[in-house]
């Protein structure tokens, strides 16, 4: 029964066009960013907003390039997940969904499972696009790609994991906010403005910097082991497993809220 619910949720995702459009845009965007980043970071004259001269090891450079999807592309798996519930409410398919599976907890878990799996796909494709494009540029301009190093591949693997977690976080958020327009606005506003600004502002104080590390975007970067923001010295990050735990806490808390609010309501 649970497996059937998972298959059903997975089919819901892949039988519409949204997922592959977002996936294609993500792949193209990440390839572009990785290529541009690989080239510019290798020029060695990057400066932060504060004007401090950066001293980056080549190792840091490639890690930032290969995991750029975690820094800049997490909005894609987040959005796919966030729309899982709102699409059901918008098109009223929540009715047949709950008729097929009256246990609302099971529906929620199946959605998390299926979106987590699709999140892995987004993570793999987004990261791969960054590795291929970024690695290609680095190789072309004669820089070390570090693709022979185990640490690099560990970062790449954790990047995939972090992006999958973002899809889970999106699904959990969607269980709380079922209005499609509202959830899209919140996702874009938070990821593009609120968190980046908050991280910059909070990093000005030491306690703020510690708080900023618990923001979801920072936690996601921590999972992949340091990337763009931290490489440029803006904020400190948690360790990878702490980042993982923080993201999971967001998922669990939001899912629990969704379960006792949205999924407790009458479906009329």
């Amino acid at each position, binding site marked *: 029964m649970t497996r059937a619910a998972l298959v059903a949720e997975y089919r819901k995702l892949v*039988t519409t066009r949204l997922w592959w459009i977002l996936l294609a845009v993500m792949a193209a965007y990440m390839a572009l960013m990785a290529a541009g980043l690989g080239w510019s970071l290798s020029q060695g004259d990057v400066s932060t907003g504060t004007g401090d001269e950066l001293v980056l090891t080549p190792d840091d450079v490639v890690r930032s390039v290969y995991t750029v999807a975690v820094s800049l592309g997490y909005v894609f798996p987040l959005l796919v997940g966030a729309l899982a519930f709102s699409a059901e409410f918008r098109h009223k398919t929540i009715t047949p969904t709950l008729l097929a599976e009256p246990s609302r907890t099971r529906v929620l878990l199946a959605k998390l499972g299926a979106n987590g799996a699709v999140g892995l796909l987004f993570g793999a494709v987004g990261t791969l696009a960054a590795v291929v494009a970024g690695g290609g540029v680095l190789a072309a301009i004669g820089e070390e790609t570090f693709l022979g190093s185990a640490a690099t591949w560990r970062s790449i693997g954790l990047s995939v994991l972090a992006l999958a977690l973002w899809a889970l976080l999106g699904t959990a958020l969607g269980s709380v906010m079922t209005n499609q327009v509202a959830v899209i606005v919140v996702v874009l506003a938070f990821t593009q403005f609120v968190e980046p600004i908050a991280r910059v502002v909070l990093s000005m104080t030491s306690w703020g910097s510690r708080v900023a590390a618990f923001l979801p975007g920072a936690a996601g970067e921590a999972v992949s082991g340091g990337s763009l923001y931290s490489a440029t010295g803006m904020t400190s990050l948690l360790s990878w497993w702490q980042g993982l735990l923080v993201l999971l806490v967001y998922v669990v808390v939001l899912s629990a809220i969704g379960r006792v609010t949205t999924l407790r309501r*009458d479906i009329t």
Partner: protein
Amino acid sequence: MSQAPPPTPGPSTAGPPAQHTDGVVRVEHLTKTFGSGPGAVHAVHDLSFEVRPGRVTGFLGPNGAGKTTTLRMLLGLVAPTSGTATIGGRRYDQIERPAHVVGAALEAASFHPGRTARDHLRVYAPQVGVPDSRADEVLALVGLAEVAKRRVGGFSLGMRQRLALATTLLGDPPVLLLDEPANGLDPEGIAWLRGLLRALAREGRTVLVSSHVLSEVEQTVDDVVIIARGQLVHASSLPDLARLARPRVSVVSPDAAALDALVAAHGWTVGASGRDGDAASYELLDVSAAQVGAAAFGGRVELHRLAGQDVGLEDLFLQLTAAPAQQTSAEAPAPGPGPAPVPSSTAPQTDAPAGGER
């Protein structure tokens, strides 16, 4: 009639008591109030009825009567304020594989427009527990085989209705609950639906079809459950309902004494009577204009008006579901084997707005 026992028994009161509860849809003292305080909407109030297998039952009432809310409570989508709604003796969420027991179509718009008809069915097939090939079977059954690979966004309302029906049939369930399935169907589609529902009932399934127009389902249903303002007003077989539709004749004579004598002599039931000087007017029940005309001719009574009014089922339906104030002025329905309408005094004074039903 209003002294009759409360309207608990379902449409087929004449049938044997349920030997097995399989396929019996039972609603008992079901109440649903949306919101609270002065703005609360009493969508359904102390509603009880029963639907038997092997018959098509029409679940009728004007818009906002609480039909959809009742169906949603039967399906576990809306939590009742009090009372129970069971299918085969169990609450929907207690049924092991619900899609194998109950097929329900609640609105014709429950589709993702970007999904094809086939994919829509394939989404639910795993949980229903049927192979994907079943999707093609039910599409053929509802006449959508040729558009199986087209996106639902381009479907007409009639095609959506057919797809909704196909979804309910995926699990080949013994109980079907269909909310306004004829909406948007063309006459040919309605005829087709009628045939399909009759065939499904003949196979021994329980078929409950809601509608706000009696005439739409008149030729399809065996039993009727009529609600208004969230309360039961009538439940019986269709023939029993038809018996409530009494013919009436309006007659006026300038010779009041002669007409009085004629009415008395034939023992006609008087619905209403009036007097204007020497003239008399009568509303006679259970008699045809031809009978009254023949009697007047034979008795040499001069008539200035003789008009037969056939109360159609639709008129009767309107009468039954009319607001309480109007109902008291209409004469009480004839005694019949069907359960009594709920006394209008218990009806809530507020009409359930349409929002209570959607």
